[in-house]
């Protein structure tokens, strides 16, 4: 029975969505919480059995030979992601329930997306991975364009076309792998990838798959869809997209680059490190100049993805674990920031950062959690961002240039959150309060987890990754000093440059990338990766 739980993870949310859509009753919509509860209980049982016997996590559907059949497989990586997804969906449903309980279609797509995302995490079959990738793209497009206003429609079509192109290249890569190895089963390929690793076709397949994944995970030249899509959606959806669904790309990166091609000795660590560093820097520069609350947060997602990439590019060791932890931590604090920003935008009825003042006096509870989120994302000790950021720099702490890039990203993050925090100051504004305790429940849960992981990271690290994280010290004088210096530099930078809104700041802000340019950049990305892999390595 336990081995069938992965199938339940996929179908419980989908059936819930279908029931909501068919019955169309506003009391029936509360079964979303029942389904989340069942999912959480099943997940608990499943993890319990997995720890005792890891073999339980591999099932073959339909009784075919497992080289061709549809198989589902779970490991530590996918189980952490599943736990995170169930938690995130529950908090977003809590947050959005009062306003969205009458929109049955919206809830249907949201629950369907959960089922598909859980399927995407568990599948052990490259072609199913592609199908779920495309389904996620379609469902997110529908959810983004759900507002049916101009910006959301254009963000949706930009997102759909660019991501479909990426997924098509992923598919071509899969085809070439099937042609060479005769199987699309991930575990089988993982064991046998060394057989043909120097074959030109396999290298080509690797390049095409990685390019597709880079579009999906918004790496350096291909991130242009992200701020458009994440900035215009409903705030609760933005929290989900920025916090969790964009990590689907990074999950694929870990599956394909780190695990599947792990035995193929393509030495791409440096390449992905610098791609990650560029992503982080460009994201932070674009975030610094924005004037819109949600745009700032959406651009920060890009820079944090760059940071994760810097850690993940090492493929093993504490830096890699730091990248994995930063995925979880970023999901928590970014959704916290988005949800708090959603409350503020609702009360002030504007997204402009210079029009919002006096949040701390008018909305004290929200602003406390906003501060928790800001401290986490900027890496203050005692918050979860600090743990993962310290782990990420473990492997390159002796290399000055890499540390320089890393420090620049941190200073940029601190500066732009000093800009963000300007909304807290000022006189009290009279607002009509929306009484909705459920929203605070989800914000409270996420905020508590942010601090919890920041303090009890040692037991968590040894439980999930089996690693001793005592490298991170909470009372490290140097870390505290660094953070204070960052705040000092950030404050000066903000006060004397960003706040004055000089010409370069305006130029960067008005920068728009057309769809044609994005495609040129995609071709450029593929060609440069091929050049590196075929000629330089």
């Amino acid at each position, binding site marked *: 029975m336990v081995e069938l739980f992965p199938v339940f993870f996929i179908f419980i949310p989908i059936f819930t969505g279908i029931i909501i859509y068919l019955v169309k009753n506003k009391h029936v919509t509360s079964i979303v919480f029942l389904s989340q509860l069942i999912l959480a209980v099943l997940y608990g049982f499943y993890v319990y059995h997995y720890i005792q016997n890891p073999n339980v996590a591999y099932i073959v559907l339909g009784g075919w030979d497992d080289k*061709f059949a549809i198989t589902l497989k779970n490991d530590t990586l996918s189980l952490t992601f599943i736990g995170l997804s169930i938690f995130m969906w529950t908090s977003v449903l809590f947050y959005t329930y009062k306003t969205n309980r009458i929109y049955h279609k919206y809830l249907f797509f949201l629950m369907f997306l959960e089922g598909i995302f859980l399927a995407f995490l568990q599948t052990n079959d490259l*072609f199913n991975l592609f*199908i779920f990738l*495309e*389904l996620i*793209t*379609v469902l997110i*497009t*529908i959810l983004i*364009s759900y507002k*049916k*206003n*101009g*910006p959301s*429609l*254009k963000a*949706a*079509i930009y997102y*759909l*076309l660019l991501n*479909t*192109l990426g997924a*098509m290249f992923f*598919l*071509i890569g899969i*085809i070439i792998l*099937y*042609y060479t190895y005769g199987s699309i089963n991930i575990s089988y390929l993982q064991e046998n990838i060394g057989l043909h690793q120097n074959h030109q076709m396999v290298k080509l397949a690797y390049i095409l798959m990685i390019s597709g994944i880079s579009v999906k995970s918004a790496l350096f030249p291909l991130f242009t869809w992200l701020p458009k899509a994440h900035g215009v959606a409903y705030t609760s959806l933005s929290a989900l997209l920025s916090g969790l669904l964009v990590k689907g790309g990074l999950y694929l990166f870990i599956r394909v680059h780190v695990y599947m091609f792990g035995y193929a000795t393509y030495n791409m660590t440096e390449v992905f490190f610098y791609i990650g560093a560029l992503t982080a820097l460009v994201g932070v520069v674009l975030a610094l100049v924005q004037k819109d609350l949600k745009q700032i947060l959406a651009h920060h997602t890009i820079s944090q993805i760059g940071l994760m990439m810097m850690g993940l590019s090492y493929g093993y060791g504490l830096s890699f674990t730091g990248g994995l932890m930063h995925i979880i931590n970023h999901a928590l604090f970014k959704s916290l920031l988005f949800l708090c920003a959603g409350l503020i935008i609702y009360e002030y009825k504007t997204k402009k950062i210079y029009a919002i003042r006096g949040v701390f006096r008018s909305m004290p509870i929200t602003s406390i959690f906003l501060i928790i989120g800001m401290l986490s994302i900027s890496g203050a000790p005692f918050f979860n961002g600090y743990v993962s950021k310290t782990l990420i720099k473990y492997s390159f702490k002796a290399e000055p240039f890499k540390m320089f890039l890393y420090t620049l990203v941190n200073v940029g993050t601190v500066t732009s959150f000093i800009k963000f925090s300007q909304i807290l100051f000022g006189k009290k504004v009279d607002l009509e309060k929306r009484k909705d305790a459920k929203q605070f429940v989800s914000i409270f849960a996420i905020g508590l987890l942010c601090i919890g992981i920041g303090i009890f990271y040692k037991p968590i690290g040894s439980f999930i990754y089996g690693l001793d994280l005592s490298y991170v010290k909470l009372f490290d004088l140097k870390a505290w000093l660094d953070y204070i210096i960052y705040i000092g530099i950030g404050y000066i930078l903000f006060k004397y440059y960003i706040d004055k809104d000089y010409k370069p700041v305006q130029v960067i802000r008005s920068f*728009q990338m*057309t*769809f*044609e340019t994005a*495609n*040129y950049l995609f*071709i450029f990305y593929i060609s440069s990766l091929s050049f590196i892999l075929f000629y330089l390595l």
Partner: protein
Amino acid sequence: MNPILSFIVILVGIYGLSVSKNIIKSVFCITIVEAGTILLFLNLGAYEGGVIPILSSLGIEIVDPIPQALMITTIVIGSTITSLALMLCIKIFHHYGSIEWKVILKGDK
């Protein structure tokens, strides 16, 4: 048929994507890329003299059935994407009165 030909179809699609100024044309170019991909896979699975892989042809040399099973799914997904994109095009035309990328990306400030 040579697999290079399907790569040429894919490249035509990508060329179209990077020069077309119109959303409908971009959607068509995506469809062309997808058609090239499907052709490529069917090509790699087939060989001369093979027959269709159904039960009555047991004992005769058949072509590889997996590409055909997978590609029919890809066709379904492709038609979903195309119809969704065209629906968005209609909505965009109602909002902006145009389906040029240039106009809609500069649309509302």
